[in-house]
């Protein structure tokens, strides 16, 4: 894998940082765009969203590691909330709770032995963790009633579905960026 976050031989440190920051900015912008498109779509089933922005998180994890994925995801949650006007509202806290839980799960998922997880496995685990985190935040901050968890199976099955599909999308994205090295023309030699 051409890791574009690794410095080239004898490259000035500033250039390496610039390259890394450029990747971060691009990916965060993609993720924010997906988040906004999704917010504009009519909800087919209330409370259930496809979570398309997580495709970017998973692809970033597989291509550039957990820290990059975490920075992109947290930036996306913050910027999307500012643009949608939901900053510090319940929707923002739910979004942040879900993102934190799925990032924790992605971090833990790296411990898998052997070839380890690919985009699909990461995505489905993160989606399930996302719902878990959201339900906990919703319970802790907004609805202190066990009735909330009657929703868990509906949301959980939806998360497994969207997590699997997003994972396949992330796989295609990783494969594409890998072979064409869209983000690394200057390091194609390694």
């Amino acid at each position, binding site marked *: 894998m051409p890791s574009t976050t690794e410095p080239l031989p004898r490259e000035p440190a500033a250039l390496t940082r610039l390259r890394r920051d450029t990747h971060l900015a691009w990916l965060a912008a993609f993720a924010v765009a997906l988040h906004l498109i999704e917010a504009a779509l009519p909800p087919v089933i*209330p*409370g259930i969203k496809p979570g398309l922005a997580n495709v970017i998180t998973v692809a970033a994890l597989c291509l550039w590691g957990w820290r990059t994925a975490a920075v992109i995801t947290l930036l996306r949650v913050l910027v999307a909330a500012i643009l949608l006007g939901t900053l510090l509202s319940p929707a923002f806290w739910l979004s942040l709770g879900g993102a934190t839980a799925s990032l924790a799960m992605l971090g833990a*998922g790296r411990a*898998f*032995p*052997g*070839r*380890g*997880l*690919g*985009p*699909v*496995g*990461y995505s*489905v*685990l993160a*989606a*399930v963790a996302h719902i878990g985190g959201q339900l906990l935040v919703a319970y802790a901050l907004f609805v202190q009633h066990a*009735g909330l*968890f*009657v*929703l*868990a*199976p*509906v949301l*959980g*099955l939806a*998360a*497994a579905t969207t*997590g*699997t599909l997003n*994972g*396949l999308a992330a*796989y*295609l994205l990783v494969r594409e960026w890998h072979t064409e090295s869209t983000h690394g023309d200057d390091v194609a030699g390694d």
Partner: protein
Amino acid sequence: MTAFLTFLREATTPADRVALVAAWAGMVVLAATAWSAPAGQEAVVIVGGEEVRRLNLANEQRITVDGHLGPTELRVRDGGVRFTHAPCSSKRCVRSGWQHRQGASAACVPNEVMVRVVGNHSEDWDAVNY
């Protein structure tokens, strides 16, 4: 279909497959446990909004209660309860069949007779809306 399965094989590592099976199985088990209400212990018979009888579902029995339209027959067997005869015209109550689980109910609306299965600490939801 075959093409999709081939794609799925190509797109996943062994660990991915483990994760997929675990996540899906976990959610299905969660759904199954959350949605299958436990078996009830008693049936409450309600006529005109007032509770008139409580039937232990462990005892096989037939009872007749007086509804708004006339005598209505209920039967308890194998931990369930059902309407067997009612003086209403639609017989929807009879066709509702056996009710076993906590929160389950059958009603003869024109006759104002309803039977509802309850448990020891029955706190169940009729419906969930959000």
